[in-house]
């Protein structure tokens, strides 16, 4: 006769625990909608900043731009080059 009481008690405890868990979970995610909106706004801002930075980087790193800047700074294309092609006149051992 004791077993059904034990079983019922266990079931009741489980029920209470699950209810508490459910209430806690529901409470914790009840504000997720707002957080999601905030996060999405943040993602959008970061994406825009990324796009702007990439544009600036690509413009700054373009050879067309570098070449123009080099010219304004007085650099000129090398007309001759030095090659150290001949074998070294040294014994390797």
């Amino acid at each position, binding site marked *: 006769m004791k077993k059904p009481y034990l079983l019922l008690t266990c079931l009741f405890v489980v029920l209470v625990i699950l209810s508490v868990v459910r209430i806690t979970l529901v409470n914790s995610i009840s504000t997720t*909608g707002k957080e*999601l*909106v905030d996060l999405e706004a943040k993602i959008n801002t970061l994406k*825009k900043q990324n*796009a*702007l930075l*990439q*544009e600036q980087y*690509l*413009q700054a*790193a*373009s*050879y*067309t*731009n570098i*070449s123009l800047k080099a010219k304004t700074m007085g650099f000129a294309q090398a007309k*001759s*080059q030095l*090659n*150290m*092609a001949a074998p070294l006149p040294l014994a390797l051992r």
Partner: protein
Amino acid sequence: MSWRYRFTLFFFLFLFGLVISRLFYWQVVRADELSALGQAQYDKQITLTAQRGEIKTSDGYAIAANKLAYLVFANPKEIKEKDKEAEALEPLLSEKSATISALLNLDKFWVPLKPHIDNTLKVQIEAKNLPGIGFQEQTLRFYPEASTAANLLGFVGKDDNGNDKGYFGLEGYYDRQLKGKDGLAIITNDARGKPILANMNDSTEKVDGRDLTLHIDRRIQFMLDQELKQGVQSYGAVRGTAAVMDPKTGGILAMSSYPSYDPSNYQQYSDSLYSNPFITFAYEPGSTFKPLIMAGALDAGLLQPDTRCTICAGPVEIDGYDIRTWNNEYDANSTMTDVIVHSDNTGMVFTGRLLGLDRMLAYLDKFGIGSATGIDLQGEVYPSLRDKSEWHEIDQATATFGQGLTVSPMQMLTAFSAIANGGKRMEPHVVDKVETADGNTITIPPKVLDQPISPETSKVITEMMVKAVDEGEAKFAKTPGYRIAGKTGTAQIPVEGHYDANKTIASFIGFAPADNPQFLMMVVIDRPTSSIYGAETAAPVFFKAAKNILSYYGIPPTEPVTDGK
């Protein structure tokens, strides 16, 4: 039951019946119509635009990317002092205040003022705190290197429905891969019109476009652009085109044309500049064609480099036409090497006669002359060879020195890849890898199209071409210290049934280092005026670019360098 009670009962039953019938009308008879009407009020369908894929050079630099831009619009109903606002916008939008004022005076809620403004300008306009002015985000195709490789890249325009579409070059050829797939989402709004996040159901995911990584080496591309532009301008030519290929893989390392255009502002340029001359220009190749015929004859075992020409003592007469050398000088003891070195037309007629028409056409077919190269660019033109029955003796004779038949520079470059690559002709490719939106990379493997000649023949013809560079007409321009194989070409242009003596297509094709080619390059200069010869126009452009490429690759000279060059 009194009559009052009955009357009240039936009265209420009647009223109840009326309510039921009205409800039936709304809930059943007009249910679908009202449901749709309601859905239209609280549901909003939005298109999730897929991001177009980037095009990157081999160093990972995005040569075609996407840029954030804005459309400035106005709500004239919210603007009270329209003239004052128009004056404030005039310097920012670079439009006359009268034009802006006319737009602001329209009886509309939304009027576009200026598209495609950048973020800096947007911030400046925002700082003015002008009422009724708003911004709509836009994505623009952005080419940071401006006109560099423009003919190779193509551009993004609009299709009939106003959607982005790639035209010409890579943007055209790979449009479906680059544009991705737009998504669709239905947002449910609450009573205040704000979106309910939990109800963003019924959406189809957008798939961003794929990124392309090219074989194009940005440094070689830039150097080639510079040299070609300088060459076309110095030699007073109509235009020029050039390309560099890795003969071992078929990868296109650079492709340039001048004059060119800026793909970001393609509308401001003539339509004629959009196509890529390197793959669309059909021309008579002239003497650059000779090594292909000579390679065929060598491969067939019909002659050797030291075989003497028996008809080279003077002009050769065929069907009433005299075939002459370009300088009208003749050497009765010419060897086949001399024929290539001095670009001797009579010697090529001798070679052609030994080869015969059938074998010549078979070799040309194996070299890919007359068929598409298969390059991954939109708009390739591939002149085909005439039917065998239409070849006469004079046609075969002139074809041996590259006149009377048309090719494209791309066909020539692909054909010569066989000579530079141990006899194997490679399929040309601009794109090396395709990267999907989920991070997978698809590598396009090199593909051998054919093997027109044996590795031994390729070595022999390479040596002849090295000698052509060292001792031929273009020797003054040669890059000192390196063994470079090459051939000049000066082709006359057919005009109304005859050749114009003063208008030529000057070209040079070659590869270096000859013993282990790292690049194969072709330069074509269209109608140069300072000199009509390839040796004096296309060859210097080739050697200047070759010098830069050899230096960039860090390839040391293999021969003594004299004159301090």
